[in-house]
């Protein structure tokens, strides 16, 4: 079965981000979307810890411990970027000022419920960070994940069994096996990966799917 690589997934997400968009890329896989944003388009990256206009990683040796992203990795600031405090940063999210945020997920329901902060394991130390704010704050919340777990179970589900991050907040899911639009009417398929049919996707996920209009 054909699958998109992680780089191909990141490139696919990047293709849907228009010039001028204000975007927050979550920790982990979503962060790699930045590598595929076209250099000739101006897209504004926000980081929850208080910067807008985030640039690429600095050259080795130029790291500044006071200039980091939400994943605590060193970054740079573009000309035209700026700094602000945490209340202002989350006002940007919660107030609906971000156009897009891209998050990873453990599970997403066909109606757009998101579970990405906890597996609910009894002995785990919980940690939520900005996930809940991001999930419900941006105008569009996109999820980027492999469609199946290592055990072959679909992470696109009728209802999430893991603890929820947000209700009815995800509008699109980018996976290695296809791109899905979610909403009150359930899931529809925007992109099929070459060689993967709608029937095959439906069999793999076990959820009702239609092709998006």
């Amino acid at each position, binding site marked *: 079965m054909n699958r998109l690589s992680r780089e191909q997934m990141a490139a696919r997400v990047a293709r849907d981000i228009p010039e001028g968009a204000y975007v927050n890329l979550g920790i982990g896989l979503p962060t790699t979307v930045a590598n595929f944003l076209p250099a000739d388009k101006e897209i504004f990256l926000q980081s929850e810890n208080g910067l*807008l206009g985030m640039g690429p990683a600095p050259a080795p040796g130029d790291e500044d411990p006071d200039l980091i992203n939400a994943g605590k990795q060193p970054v740079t600031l573009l000309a035209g970027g700026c700094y602000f405090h945490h209340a202002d940063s989350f006002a940007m999210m919660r107030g609906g*000022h971000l156009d897009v945020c891209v998050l990873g997920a453990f599970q997403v329901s066909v109606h757009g419920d998101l579970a990405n902060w906890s597996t609910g394991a009894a002995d785990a130390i919980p940690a939520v960070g900005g996930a809940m704010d991001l999930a419900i704050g941006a105008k569009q919340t996109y999820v980027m994940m492999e469609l199946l777990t290592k055990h072959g179970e679909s992470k696109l589900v009728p209802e999430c069994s893991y603890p929820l991050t947000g209700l009815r907040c995800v509008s699109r899911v980018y996976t290695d096996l296809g791109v899905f639009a979610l909403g009150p009417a359930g899931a529809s398929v925007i992109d099929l990966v070459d060689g993967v049919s709608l029937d095959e996707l439906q069999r793999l996920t076990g959820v009702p799917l239609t092709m998006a209009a």
Partner: protein
Amino acid sequence: MIDKSVASFDAAVADIFDGATVMIGGFGTAGMPDELIDALIAQGARELTIVNNNAGNGDTGLAALIKHKRVRRIVCSFPRQADSQHFDAAYRAGEIELELVPQGNLAARIHAAGSGLGAIFTPTGYGTGLAAGKETREIDGRHYVLEYPIHADYALIKAQRGDRWGNLVYRKTARNFGPIMAMAAKCTIAQVADLMALGELDPEAIITPGIFVQRVVATSAMQETA
């Protein structure tokens, strides 16, 4: 390339529609975006709801907008002033509706809108006529009134310098409501004295990040888009 600068005041306000809610920056005349308001008067939109601290001074700016009978309703803290004659006349004639809000609640409600809060419990106004009929609650021994956010379709504000990404810095007490109105409106239009090249504003000292600003117009007729 993203360039939020607009070549003229007329173009900047062209789509403001009849019945829109428009926040207008300024405390008295400090920070009042006179040129944008003049363009709005020329544009002709009517039945506006205006959010401002005052209700116009003298014959210019917001006072002129009221004089031209474009305002159906005003949300403000301090309409009555020595030179608020145009508001006074319209109010007494029953042509304009007034929602009077304590100044700090006005600021907090605008800020709540920009921050995505659904409502806030504020102590200001508790037990007074301006809280009549509003939900109240005692929290940790203090009394609060539940107040709701004030959103707007447009904000017209005045800053000192801006750039093509919409970043703004202000000048002295002309800052007042500008930064929070920029957060609370769907479309924020800023007039600036100077349009700077990208990167010329100190990133540590930018007061309004460009994400909150949709259009920038330079007052200088000689403006160059950076």
